[in-house]
């Protein structure tokens, strides 16, 4: 079986890619996608460590993370739609004011 280290390193790499995406992209939808990459990297850690410890708790936490990710995606995309109605753009730079 592949050592635990490999999974944790892969998870770290994926999380870093997600972080880079949040910093680098200028599109709200791609930023949300990058957050999903980060959530998945954390899920991989939970499942790998759960397997390492011989416990199902990792998979149960992953289940809850997926549910919260679904809720987050629904509300986040609704916010994107509401923002797009106001400014006709998805660039985060257009949304620097708190009120208009």
């Amino acid at each position, binding site marked *: 079986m592949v050592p635990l280290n490999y999974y944790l390193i892969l998870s770290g790499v994926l999380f870093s890619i997600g972080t880079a995406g949040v910093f680098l992209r200028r599109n709200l939808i791609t930023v949300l996608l990058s957050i999903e990459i980060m959530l998945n990297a954390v899920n991989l850690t939970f499942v790998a460590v759960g397997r390492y410890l011989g416990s199902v708790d990792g998979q149960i936490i992953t289940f809850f993370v997926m549910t919260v990710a679904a809720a987050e995606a629904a509300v986040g995309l609704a916010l994107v*739609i509401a923002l797009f*109605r106001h400014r006709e753009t998805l660039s985060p730079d257009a949304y620097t004011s708190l009120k208009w």
Partner: protein
Amino acid sequence: MVSMDTLAFYVFAAIAVIASLGVIGQGNPMHSIMLLIGSFGALAGLYILLDAPFTAVTQIIVYAGAIMVLFLFVVMLLNVPREEPAPVTAGGLLGPAGFKLGAGLSVLLAIEVIWGLSRLGIAGFAQDADAATVSSVARIGNELFTQHAFAFEATSILILVAMVGAVVLARREH
């Protein structure tokens, strides 16, 4: 001789990393979503390698099936195929220097994590005899509905709130 498990791990890991890089590497959100579905498929393969078939199936159904369809729907609804180029006037954290700082921090994070983990001397996994108990869907269900029953119910309320919230937020104002 490389074992089957190791080979499969490298293949899935490569697909996941390359697809994720593709998600953040190009400007078309539609292509990003398709690549992210590929990345999720590779992660489902890794879950199978980790004796977690329930999580693998949930990953495909919930993530690749439901959440990504939601993203696709919004991309098609808003109809903005390409993102605008970066404005040259922006300074501070929004300028090119800020982007370089962000990219540098991400690379630094990756190097730190890899360096720290490669120094850890973690041996192999728990015995293969544990594989049956870890991969048992019956055991997951048992723990989910007894030990984690409160969290489960709280999650259902969260979903309800998110559903109502999404409808209210996306509704057209009169």
